[in-house]
């Protein structure tokens, strides 16, 4: 492998890995507060991509209830991304109300909540299919305005062209990660969130409304899923209503690799899996997922708590 290809694949890997990271962070935030995996996360990812697509004023296909319909507004990509992800976040909040809170109030077994979230995932996915059909949607060619299709990171005689969309993805992801890190570590609400994650009972006795912070966590988590879905959709295409489900499984590999409940772990795990996948030779690219889960299995054997996870201590 020559140097040009190496750098290209490395940057591609970091780009897709940074999406894995923000997507997996959504899982991690909810896991660290409720101790469960939210299987609706992948469906929100899908929803976010469709929402951004719709907000850019693009028309849907000829299948489904909304055949050939388009919103009368054409938002530029950054605005559509933000607004679409906010709506995805609000859908996450609604899901918490409908599928999580009633079970939590009754002290239901966590497994039941997991099943409930799976049910929500299927409903969201089927609803999308009912509304807009199962075909592929590609973001418009001018999604990123007048930016060139690729940017040369090498010199004139040694070109290292990188697709602009990969750079945009990476920058957006880094920005989102920076904002989230600041919020969690340095604001009153971030501290309270961490307190609720560690011990909700004690947090409530310090005047913290734990339900409110669970809602906030669902909003942030689903917002992140919406951003990730949009970025993947704009980079390749929206591959039908089920495209978030496979991505959702990949996200699980990322958080187990990084360490369940660890925020830096989710970021590291995401980047790692992204880069390793990028170096899977072209003729084997159909086996990328197998590589990700192969890493996961090895990790579970060697270091079950994940790269940055804490060793689980039985609570007495």
């Amino acid at each position, binding site marked *: 492998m020559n140097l040009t290809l190496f750098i290209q694949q490395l940057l591609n890997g970091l780009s897709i890995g940074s999406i894995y990271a923000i997507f997996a962070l959504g899982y991690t935030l909810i896991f660290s507060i409720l101790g469960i995996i939210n299987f609706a996360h992948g469906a929100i990812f899908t929803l976010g991509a469709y929402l951004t697509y719709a907000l850019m004023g693009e028309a849907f296909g000829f299948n489904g209830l909304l055949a050939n319909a388009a919103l009368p507004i054409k938002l530029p990509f950054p605005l559509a991304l933000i607004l679409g992800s906010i709506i995805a976040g609000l859908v996450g909040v609604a899901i918490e109300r409908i599928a999580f809170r009633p079970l939590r109030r009754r002290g239901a077994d966590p497994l039941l909540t997991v099943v409930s979230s799976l049910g929500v995932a299927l409903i969201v996915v089927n609803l999308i299919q009912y509304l807009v059909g199962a075909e592929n949607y590609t973001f418009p060619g001018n999604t990123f305005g007048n930016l060139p299709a690729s940017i040369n990171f090498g010199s004139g005689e040694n070109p290292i062209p990188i697709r602009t969309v990969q750079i945009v993805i990476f920058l957006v992801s880094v920005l989102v990660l920076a904002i989230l890190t600041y919020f969690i570590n340095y604001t*009153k609400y971030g501290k309270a969130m961490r307190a609720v994650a560690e011990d909700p009972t004690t947090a409530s006795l310090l*005047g913290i409304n734990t339900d409110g912070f669970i809602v906030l966590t669902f909003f942030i988590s689903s917002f992140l899923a919406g951003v990730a879905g949009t970025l993947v959709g704009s980079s390749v295409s929206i591959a039908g209503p089920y495209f978030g489900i496979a991505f959702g499984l990949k996200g699980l590999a990322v958080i187990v690799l990084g360490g369940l409940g660890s925020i830096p772990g989710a970021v590291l795990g995401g980047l790692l899996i992204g880069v390793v996948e990028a170096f899977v030779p072209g003729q084997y690219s159909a086996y990328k997922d197998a590589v990700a889960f192969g890493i996961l299995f090895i990790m579970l054997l060697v270091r079950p708590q994940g790269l940055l996870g804490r060793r689980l201590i039985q609570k007495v």
Partner: protein
Amino acid sequence: MSQQVLSKDNSILEAKGLTRRFGGLVAVNNVSFSVQKHEIFGLIGPNGAGKTTLFNLITCLLPPSSGQLIYEGEKISQLRPHQVASKGISRTFQNIRLFGELSALENVMIGRHIHSRNIHPVAALVSGMLALPVANQQEKETKQKALELLEMMGLNDRTNEKAKNFPYGDQRRLEIARALALEPQILLLDEPAAGMNPNEKHQLSEFIREIRDRFNLTIILIEHHVPLVMGLCDRIAVLDFGQLIALGEPAVVRNDPAVIEAYLGDD
């Protein structure tokens, strides 16, 4: 919806026929008492007498099966724990419950959650990002208050260390600092002297009086160490199998035959 009830004399907290059942077990059985403002009120009794359950009722971690709790003239039993905490009832735990993964400073800052100015989370996020003075000022004030409390507890030399790395005695003091950060009216201490040597227990008595006066607190404490309770408390309530068997000043309770039989005689 809270109904105003006229409080007698100088009472800050009143339990009226408070009962809590767990299945067939009656952990707290028809208990009534009234705690006066600025009092140090002791709660003693053998293991399983229902003392911690009573604390859980007062902090609304558990709803009572029947009976009422009245705090500053208001029924509080139907409130949620964070609401009671905001109204000024704060506590520590028998088995210390710090946020172990967070620093000592963060633990105390979280205790100030209800006091730091309420700006919207989104506003906090945006203004923090842009380094606007609002968010930074808010965090600075909270941090300043937290540092003062840590200094008072003699914990100011390791404020950025994770709470779980502190030795046992320091964890107890850190938990009290966090409880005080709420600026409570009533402080509930669940076995504050557990694991302390006689000298430390003596210092603890002095310390509890000091914070009572300094922060104008009412203190309710559960404690097994009888000499400490007798020396420190203004009044003592004795629980046995969930029932209140004696209530009064230490000298009276000490000589109560029912108390001697149920508890003190055991020693």
